[in-house]
């Protein structure tokens, strides 16, 4: 039985590529392939998947997708069913609705199968009406170059109208032809690949360049192509390092910005700053859960948009409460604020631990912050990082506006510089203090929203960032927002440029030592106040 099935498949495999554009298979053939998916061994399944991929049958796409998503099931009598998102079942071949007697077993897949499913899907979608699908298929083909695939690519190329897709197809075709026994074709293919910076292509060319048995002309061409690619990649890598540095910098910036208010402007050594960030992250979690529980899935992506003001309000309110309840009794006694805020931080951590439990909470990236886009050379710019960079600058910009352009900002600064005199000038110091601390805390809360998108949401979240935050604010120069920005970005970029050479740990050590040395030259930080006013 098994042997027989395999035999059929083999025949199909040989014949089908020639018929790729055929509208589809007879139901019986399709049914046979589909039955293979429910086979016992992985080898059987793979043969069936490859068969489906080669079938060109539009129905195969849905079946394979369902298989990959774990939505394909089999009944006791080996009928293969597709489960819809609403939990209904339908026969995979006929599409007829089925109500299975017992719960059908999900057909399991593993990575090896997933690889084949992707390959098969890419073949099938090479002719999809959606250019996006076709582009994906072409890229997939580039990453799995095989001479067998060339005829299909040729066909697709002939029919292709979209320039981008056509270019991708050409590249994929060239990649497949590199190993062509025909020396001329191979050489032409290598030349064509010179323009690519794809790491897969690079690897392919590397193989040719290192292959002693290969045609010397091909080797030479491959070598020169490689040199070109490497030059381009070096540049790209520089840019990527810069991006990563800015990205790390923006994380530091966000972590530090609230502290730049509570510590930088108000002078409160706020050891509970990290916990404000944590509160923001937990607020994000709660908002997310609320969205999941009460709103349709289509709105889920907006949960983050709601989280930002929510986190600002929650952390800000806690900040105001702390200021009114504790901090305000401690102005002019920075040491005591250190002690009290440390106590606050312990309590907040344990409180969150008691309410939400000690383990991490899951906070999902909304789809618009998931994944990334590849730039040259296989490097990926991830959306969440990009959004966070933008967010960091936006928050800083808004804060600068508040502090520089509003009366509240003026009053905040006046109050911290001379509380008594500010009161005499008619500034309601109590309210300004509460608002300032609330603002700093609220900003920390917003940072928590951003940080929940790249790291842990746990009761310890704050302790991770507190040291770095102080480092950034002080390094930049206490009281200077520009300094905070420069400090954060500087440290981020330097760190990321060191990391490739020194590794993560040594890199960080170097950065710390650099800070120590740097402070010797600028004892009051990067953007220090100079002159008499600094001493006052």
């Amino acid at each position, binding site marked *: 039985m098994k042997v027989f099935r395999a035999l059929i498949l083999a025949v199909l495999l040989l014949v089908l590529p020639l018929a790729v554009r055929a509208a589809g298979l007879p139901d019986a053939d399709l049914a046979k392939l589909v039955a293979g998916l429910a086979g016992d061994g992985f080898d059987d399944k793979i043969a069936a998947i490859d068969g489906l991929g080669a079938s060109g049958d539009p129905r195969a796409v849905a079946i394979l997708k369902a298989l990959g998503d*774990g939505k394909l099931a089999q009944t006791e009598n080996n009928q293969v069913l597709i489960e819809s998102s609403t939990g209904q079942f339908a026969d995979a071949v006929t599409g007829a609705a089925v109500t299975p007697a017992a719960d059908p077993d999900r057909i*399991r897949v*593993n*990575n*090896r199968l*997933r*690889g084949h499913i*992707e390959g098969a899907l890419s073949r099938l979608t090479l002719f999809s009406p959606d250019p996006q699908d076709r582009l994906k298929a072409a890229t997939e083909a580039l*990453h799995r170059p095989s001479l067998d695939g060339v005829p299909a690519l040729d066909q697709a190329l002939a029919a292709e109208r979209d320039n981008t897709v056509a270019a991708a197809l050409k590249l994929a075709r060239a990649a497949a032809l590199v190993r062509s026994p025909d020396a001329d074709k191979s050489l032409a293919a290598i030349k064509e690949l010179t323009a690519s910076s794809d*790491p*897969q292509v*690079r*690897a*392919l060319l*590397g193989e040719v360049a290192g292959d002693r048995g290969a045609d010397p002309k091909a080797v030479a061409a491959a070598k020169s192509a490689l040199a070109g690619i490497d030059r381009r990649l070096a540049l790209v890598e520089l840019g*990527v*390092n810069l991006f*990563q540095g800015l*990205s*790390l910098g923006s*994380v530091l910036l966000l972590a530090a910005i609230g502290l730049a208010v509570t510590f930088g402007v108000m002078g409160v050594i706020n050891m509970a700053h990290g916990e404000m960030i944590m509160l923001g992250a937990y607020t994000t979690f709660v908002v997310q859960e609320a969205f999941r529980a009460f709103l349709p899935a289509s709105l889920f992506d907006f949960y983050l948009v709601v989280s930002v003001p929510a986190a600002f309000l929650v952390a800000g309110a806690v900040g105001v409460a702390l200021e009114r309840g504790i901090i305000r009794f401690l102005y002019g006694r920075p040491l005591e604020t250190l002690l009290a805020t440390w106590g606050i931080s312990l309590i907040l951590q*344990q409180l969150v*631990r008691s309410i939400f439990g*000690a*383990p*991490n*909470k*899951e*906070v*999902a*990236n909304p789809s618009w912050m*998931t*994944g*990334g886009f*590849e730039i040259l050379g*296989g*490097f*990926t710019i*991830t*959306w*969440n*990082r990009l959004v966070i960079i933008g967010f960091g600058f936006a928050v800083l910009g808004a804060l600068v506006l508040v502090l520089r352009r509003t009366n509240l900002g003026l009053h905040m600064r006046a109050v911290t510089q001379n509380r008594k005199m500010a009161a005499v000038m008619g500034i309601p110091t109590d309210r300004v203090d509460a608002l300032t601390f609330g603002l700093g805390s609220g900003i920390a809360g917003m940072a928590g929203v951003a940080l929940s*998108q*790249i*790291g*842990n*949401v*746990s*009761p*310890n979240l704050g*302790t*991770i960032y507190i040291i770095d935050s102080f480092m950034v604010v002080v390094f930049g120069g206490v009281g200077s927002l520009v300094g905070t920005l420069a400090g954060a970005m500087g440290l981020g970029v330097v*760190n*990321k440029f060191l*990391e*490739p050479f020194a*590794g*993560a*740990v040594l890199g*960080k050590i170097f950065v710390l030592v650099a800070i120590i040395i740097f402070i010797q030259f600028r004892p009051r930080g990067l953007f220090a106040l100079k002159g008499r006013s600094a001493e006052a």
Partner: protein
Amino acid sequence: ADDTIKIGVLHSLSGTMAISETTLKDTVLMMVDDLNKKGGLLGKKVEAVVVDPASNWPLFAEKARELISKDHVAVVFGCWTSVSRKSVLPVFEELNGLLFYPVQYEGEESSNNVFYTGAAPNQQAIPAVEYLMSKEGGEVKRWVLEGTDYVYPRTTNKILEAFLKSKGVPAEDIKVNYTPFGFSDWQTEVADIKKFASAGKKTAVVSTVNGDANVPFYKELANQGIKATDTPVVAFSVGEEELAGIDTKNLVGHLAAWNYFESVKNSTNDAFIKKWHAFIKNDKRVTNDPMEATYIGFKMWTQAVLQAGTTDVYAVRQAMYGQKVQAPSGFTAVMNTNHHLSKPVMIGEIQANGQFDVVWQTKAPIKADAWSPYLAEDKGKVADWTFPWACGNCTAPKYAAFE
């Protein structure tokens, strides 16, 4: 009082390790609760003495001393990180206490006062790599060993490197990288992995990244588009509990190797999960391997106490050898005379729902090696605490003369 038996629970409830360890504290409490409901032990009530060593290693030693000397506990369930175990080890040996250690670790140890119910490297790391080398696992040729810089990953990677080389993997196809505890900015590391993986050979990442660093690591993996079909990541410290803190939609297919997964179907496991949900009063809480190891350890200890008729450490220790427990993994775990377990090894793939699908498992339990056969310095070392060896670290039996 004389009508209670005290047992110590030495897991961090605050600090960085609380994330993982609180669950184990709850597991012990659940087991105690269960035991007391069934009438206790030797006719006495069992009382758990919980302390918080606060993720502070010296404090672990101090609290261990307090538990044994002041509270006179009969046994201690505790520790997660290897360093905490190393820190308390001298205390347990000095005061002749008994520690059950439930976490997978690097091996290279066998103390008369510790029973190790987590996996040794040969029960986790080696099988996982073997799986990836197999056809089913994708015939991986190139390896990234990514770990947190401390003893467990270092040891595991050292053993793995020796193993891989013994299988003919050339040095240039192995990349080892360490990051510190709590590392959070994985951009460069993940980009490097991508680069390493794009050399045309099938590549896998073996992750011994521990603790807090995992969430940002996986988020970065997902966002930079490292797919399990291209470059699978197999982890030894990421279980259901860790996954509960990560959005797994984009991680489907990445792997973990353990001796237990919550998704395993058998009646023991069903009961275990049910008991857990009832105890913790939350149906969403998952179970994981260290919890199962705690479960096994606790069961074995109660059985040994019953058998010995006392909680006396000497007697209980003797009774422990050969102790069998029907484990939630579906297999029978056995305590060996090297103070380590025989347990099955399972490889699971991450699913979108935060659970693992077992894609491979051993046919039978594997016996843990306290000393690795792949390391030169471990040549000839034997851990066997019964006559005539009576030793955890010897090349000749202590009582050879009696033979």
